[in-house]
């Protein structure tokens, strides 16, 4: 199972000091946080993509390429890549390029984006959000798998004899997750392609995500990619930890109370009750995270949101120390102990390449990365 962090990349005033970092500071802080993630033994760093203040990460592959050059193991990902307003041709090219530079340590998460004006800024219509996500991803999927593409759709200029360059590393496209907060269409899409499904899990009560993930798992099986419990599920989470629970609550409360999105709304206590936000001791985070498995089934990737709402960089780095030293090792052990053998790990470049080579050798033909699983049954 993979553990990592995802960053929204917000520039937010620290409510306890009134200090606002510059964009330069925030961008460098994101990089520092990513490097720290590798240092403390996490597996994944994912950056958001935004095109409006107060967010800085408008250019994810630039940032991830820089991080790739300074890390060895970390998988670089996104949360999310806007499949609606980016040109799928450019996504195909940017992430294939990143794959080569990062020696395959790349995957990405598709999302529609929920900032209304971004659509018109990029010449799109938000009312076509779902259609854009479906049509553009369909094209992206082909651009990474077919050397020469003839394509005609409704929402982009046609392509005749087009080859996206560079070709994916080793002919293996980056693994794709589809993130959704509420759309059954996106769960259906992820299932159809045998891609991963990521439930952000941060805002809504778990019952909502249980329905979405159940839908994705049922349809993943329906489309023949594997059994219900072999579908590739990722979850978000949000934590703030100190040795003593009361200290964590006392320190985090002003950040919570003034946070973008939920600040000045529900109390910290209400929000922790209703959502996966956990503010407390490392043990409380362990207990809460282990519960996710009971709600959503065995899953492959857990990402935590650790660096938002104006928390200073020093605090975010301390949090990563606690996460890497005290929480994730226990979670790895506990999750592994209860995980059935037939439940696959999250696909990586290495596993997808091995699957492709096995397929070429005639072991299994569908090339969807489930070969080993099927062989084991």
């Amino acid at each position: 199972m993979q553990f990592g962090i995802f960053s929204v990349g917000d520039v937010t005033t620290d409510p306890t000091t009134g200090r606002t970092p510059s964009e330069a500071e925030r961008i460098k802080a994101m990089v520092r946080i990513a490097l720290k993630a590798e240092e403390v033994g996490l597996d994944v760093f994912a950056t958001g993509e935004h095109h409006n203040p107060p967010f800085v990460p408008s250019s994810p592959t630039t940032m991830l390429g820089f991080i790739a050059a300074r890390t060895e193991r970390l998988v670089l990902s996104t949360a999310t890549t806007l499949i609606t307003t980016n040109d799928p041709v450019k996504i195909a090219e940017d992430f294939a390029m990143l794959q080569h530079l990062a020696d395959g340590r790349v995957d990405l998460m598709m999302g529609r984006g929920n900032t209304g004006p971004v659509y018109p800024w990029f010449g799109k219509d938000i009312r076509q959000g779902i259609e854009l996500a479906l049509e553009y991803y369909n094209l992206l999927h082909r651009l990474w798998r077919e050397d020469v593409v003839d394509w005609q759709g409704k929402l982009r200029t046609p392509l005749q004899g087009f080859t996206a360059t560079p070709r994916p590393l080793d002919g293996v496209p980056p693994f794709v997750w589809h993130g959704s907060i509420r759309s059954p269409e996106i769960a259906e899409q992820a299932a159809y392609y045998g891609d991963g499904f990521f439930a952000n899990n941060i805002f809504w009560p778990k019952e909502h995500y249980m329905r979405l993930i159940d839908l994705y798992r049922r349809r993943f099986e329906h489309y023949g990619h594997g059994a219900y419990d072999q579908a590739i599920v990722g979850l978000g989470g949000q934590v703030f930890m100190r040795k003593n629970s009361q200290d964590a609550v006392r320190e985090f409360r002003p950040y919570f109370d003034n946070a973008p999105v939920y600040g000045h709304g529900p109390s910290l206590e209400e929000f922790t009750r209703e959502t996966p936000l956990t503010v407390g001791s490392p043990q409380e985070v362990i207990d809460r995270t282990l519960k996710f498995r009971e709600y959503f089934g065995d899953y492959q990737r857990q990402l935590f949101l650790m660096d938002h709402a104006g928390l200073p960089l020093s605090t975010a780095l301390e949090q990563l120390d606690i996460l890497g030293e005290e929480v994730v090792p226990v979670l790895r052990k506990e999750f592994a102990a209860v995980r059935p053998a037939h439940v696959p790990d999250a696909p990586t470049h290495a596993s997808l390449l091995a699957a492709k080579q096995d397929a070429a050798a005639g072991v299994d033909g569908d090339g969807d990365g489930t070969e080993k699983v099927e062989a084991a049954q």
Partner: protein
Amino acid sequence: MTERRIAVVSAGLGRPSSTLLLGEKLATAAEAALRERGIEARVDVVELRDHAHDLTNNMLTGFPASSLREMLERVTGADGVIAVTPIFNASYSGLFKTFFDVLEQDALAGRPVLIAATGGTPRHSLALEHALRPMFAYLRSVVVPTAVYAASEDWGAGGDPAGGLTGLTGLTGRIGRAAEEFAALVADRQAPERTDPYADPVPFERLLRGGD
């Protein structure tokens, strides 16, 4: 015996509340009118003041807390809604609007709705027609032709002296007429086949073709 569920949504703020009282009188009259048609009504009364904080939180976070979700499901699952608000500044109250603003799209489409309001003076009565009725038209609810307004004086001898269709006068007469119209719509309502997009997703090939 057939059964129908009616939800009363009251945005009254006082305790006791004349807005709630009007809602309850309308519900009682609607129950009686349905019983004449051989239909048993189950009435659920929701006082929005009890959920005011949750409604604001839903506005800010974009999702309903579990306590609020349960209430929203009771209202959106009803066969008919009696919606009552005090008139503030020539329109519905902010709390009343907030409730309808957090509902999912189409949550009340096709649903019979009886609109009613209270106010200190009869001069605000047309707020029902220029504020509430258009909002429910936008929500594509089926709004009962008679809207009921109760000014302070209507609770006594005030109001119109002429007998209505029911032969009763004043507020009681208007309540009876509105409840009768509402009951007819609720009685006729066939619960729509609700498709659950999570249980029965549109297959991908059809999604990709644009849903046709």
